[in-house]
């Protein structure tokens, strides 16, 4: 429904809906690729100049919450370029990456997708995720957080030009981060 006409949405609104649909579909496809362990395909979603960054979060008093997350240049859980991500993918495929052999079972749930800026060439998109992992018989990890991506428009789809991952944990409550977010 549209406030503008009361009958049919404006073209501008339709364009925004289509854009939202395309971004969401991109994320759902990405999640499916990750959960199917198709890591080469996943790597192909990233731009050559992409960065992949997961800062460390610290419990701080309310007046210091601006210092909650570390910044680029400080320590992080991930601080990768695309070539380093490619190294991680090669590691996972090597047949000797024991923390993922037998492979963990993962499920990526992506929600609350919000396009916060659109410069034409690139979109800035915030989304929430739940990455659920079980491993062997009894190990269970669950990570909830948000991602802030820069998506670049290419040939009718997107490339991830930058990804920042913010976890809702300070002390990480699992033994490793051998999966992608």
């Amino acid at each position, binding site marked *: 429904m549209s406030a503008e006409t009361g009958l049919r949405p404006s073209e501008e609104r339709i364009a925004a809906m289509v854009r939202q649909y395309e971004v969401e579909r991109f994320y759902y496809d990405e999640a499916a690729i990750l959960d199917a362990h198709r890591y080469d395909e996943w790597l192909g979603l990233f731009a050559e100049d992409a960065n992949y960054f*997961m800062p460390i979060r610290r419990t*701080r008093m309310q007046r210091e919450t601006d210092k909650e997350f570390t910044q680029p240049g*400080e320590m992080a859980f991930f601080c990768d370029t695309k070539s380093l991500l490619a190294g991680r993918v090669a590691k996972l495929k090597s047949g000797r990456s024991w923390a993922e052999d037998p492979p963990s079972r993962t499920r990526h749930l992506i929600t609350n997708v919000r396009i916060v800026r659109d410069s034409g060439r690139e979109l800035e998109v915030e989304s929430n995720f739940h990455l659920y992992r079980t491993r062997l018989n009894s190990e269970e990890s669950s990570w909830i957080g948000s991602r802030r991506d820069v998506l670049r428009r290419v040939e009718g789809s997107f490339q991830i030009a930058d990804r920042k991952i913010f976890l809702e944990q*300070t002390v990480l409550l699992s*033994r490793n981060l051998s999966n992608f977010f």
Partner: protein
Amino acid sequence: MTTPIAIDELVSLERGEIDRRIYSDPAIFELEMEKIFGRAWLFLCHESQIPEPGDFFQSVMGRDNVLVVRQKDGTVKAMLNTCAHRGNAVCRAEEGNAKSFLCTYHGWSYGIDGRLLGVPGFKTFYNGQLDKTQHGLAQVAQVASYKGFIFGTHDATAPPLEDYLGATGRLGLDLIAARGEMVVVPGIQKFIIDCNWKFAVDNLFDWYHPQITHASAFQTGALGTEPSRAPAEKIDMSGVNMDTGAALDLPGMGIIGTKFDQVVVLGEYGHAIGGPTASSSANPDFENAWRSTAQAREVLGPVGAKVAGHPNIFPTSWVTSVTGQLSLRIPRDPGHTEIWWFTLVDRNLPRETRDFMVTVASRVFGPGGVLEQDDGENWAQATMQTRGIASRRVKQQLTMGLGQGRIIKEGGLARVEGLTSEHGQLWTYHSWAQWMKGLSWDELRQATTPGEFI
């Protein structure tokens, strides 16, 4: 367990055998808390983390939460994070800056030095009769700093920090401190591995595992280096079979091989340094130039200049000499260990070099590190198997090089030279057993003084 624990039956330095109960028996864990973590000097944080008055970092000693706080006069105090009234924590943040610490239960407030300042209802409810000077935050018995590394001990009778560290422990910390004006990069990685703490400690001396455990990281360029396919000076891998039946294709990389000189330094109170010599581990991809400065040469001395392996300040402070980090292995319960990574860089490094070191640190170690992500499952599974009534009867084996290590004493250090061995782990467990007996400090020093052979 009501009968006393017979410590000497748990660890045999002669046979290189360890009773697996030490990895999961709750009574042994309780004894460790008292006899080791209740007495040893424990690393708290680095001075650069708390430069300004009121800056604090919350650390852990055994199961005691400790606030390490920079004072107005520039000194550092460490105090227990528990209200003197009814025990609530007076600080919940991991780090920050505070003017005072307020207990949110009844409102007692403390200065940054731990003195009790405010008591609500002091006149009305206490009739002004509470002696505030007697109810400050409990201070850690001794706090001291070695080249910026702040340690604390719960034991007022413990020897001074520099004596406790001895030549081996000091060299361990010098391997970071000698690089320049070292500061901690903001962001301490913290994560929990479901393993006993001793697996996470003894592994740091284990140079037998990288070529298997970390094969995927060395082979595929995940370390950020070119994949190394050149045949290594291969360890004899006959007998290794992948479950697919294929031979295990080993990477060639600087830290594995047979013609690979190692040096293990053994120190009093259980400190040790184990791993490759500086010349055999040369890895052009990591920042190594600091070793050749006049300052570093002088501090390290002739033996120290050879050492490029991993120091452990007993019990739980691992200095990683390659990445310039310090990792704590904090026991939480018999089956859980919290890992903390402190990353240090020379304040004067060019921005580019600093950024490179920081990136390397997060790529190699920590939960996302391509090395450490494969370690945790080994230790978790090993811990799990010590709970089975039959599995735990199988003795843990530390027999590689057993009895063949001739101990050379030179420059105040005791060392063993040779190929990959388990001497570092043996020394750690031997010392662990002496600590667990509750000896006097003199007796403990005697019992952990290296002999002629190991």
